[in-house]
């Protein structure tokens, strides 16, 4: 998929945004949610997702919760207080970036 490279740098923002809208999610659910929301256009690979989740956890932006689901345990991620603040910052950064990119690739078009 050609645009996979383009969204690689936005992975953390995507994860934070999904968690902001879904309270708590587990890794596999995030990959499926992205696939569903983008109608299969974007696919987060497991090799990229988990290091990003673990990095966010290590940075204190995500908290984990283990819950029993059926006959096994599941690890859920949710935003911490600083994670919630960081989500707002990251989304603002993303908006700014998209606006700048629009100006570069399509000067007449505006997002506003």
């Amino acid at each position, binding site marked *: 998929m050609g645009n996979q490279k383009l969204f690689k740098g936005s992975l953390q923002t995507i994860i934070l945004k999904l968690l902001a809208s879904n309270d708590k999610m*587990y*890794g*596999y*659910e995030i990959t*499926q949610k992205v696939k569903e929301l983008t109608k299969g256009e974007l696919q987060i690979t*497991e*090799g990229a997702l*988990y*290091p990003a989740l*673990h*990095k966010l956890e*290590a*940075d*204190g932006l995500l908290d*984990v919760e*283990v819950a029993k*689901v059926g*006959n*096994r*345990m*599941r*690890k859920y991620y949710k935003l911490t207080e600083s994670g919630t603040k960081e989500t707002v910052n990251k989304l603002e950064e993303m908006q700014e970036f998209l606006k700048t990119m629009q100006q570069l690739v399509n000067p007449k078009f505006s997002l506003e």
Partner: protein
Amino acid sequence: MEKKYKITEKQLTFLEEFLLRIYKDIPVKTRIELTDHLILDFEATTRNGNLSQYLSNEIAFIRKFTSTKIKLYKNLYRKETWQYFFSFFKDLNKLPHSVFGFIFFYSLSESLSNYWLWLAYMISYCVLFFLVIFYGMIHQKALKKLDEVKFLGAEIWWLFVLINFAQGLDFIDFLTQNSLLFSAIWFLTIFYSYAAYMIVKKHEKIIINKYKHLLN
């Protein structure tokens, strides 16, 4: 979420035993996450229900998953320690300490004989080393296997290895005869160890607070 197959109890036990056998040291939460992911992916993608075949195909991912999680904290602590160390030059409040420290080490390097200089160096390092080991490390059994704890304080070890390396190569005479070089190494050792100690103390508080439920 598409699901074509449901893993059997026998396969679940097999998977758990497989991960325990091959990666017995991985922390519980990491194993839970990995197991859950493998089950969901297996259920969604398998065509014949052959778990052994699926695990063979996924072995590279499993290896990467377990190793990157551990490396992540190691790299994080190293990065934070270096950042703290560089703050001795950037932070105006710390800069006088750095200047004084370097002048102090340099004056000792100039005035002491090689033997006493090396001894002073070793003693100063050992004080910080044991400070980290005894007062900084997390010794609670319930927390020791956590990813966050495994490499906490590990930054102090590479300096210990460096010193032993210098001793092993009979490099000490060369170092102690060059006051400026020796002062720079001394400065690096002491200030980096102190930075490592400060990072340990910072994370110790966070970890104990985060996992206090495991300590009760």
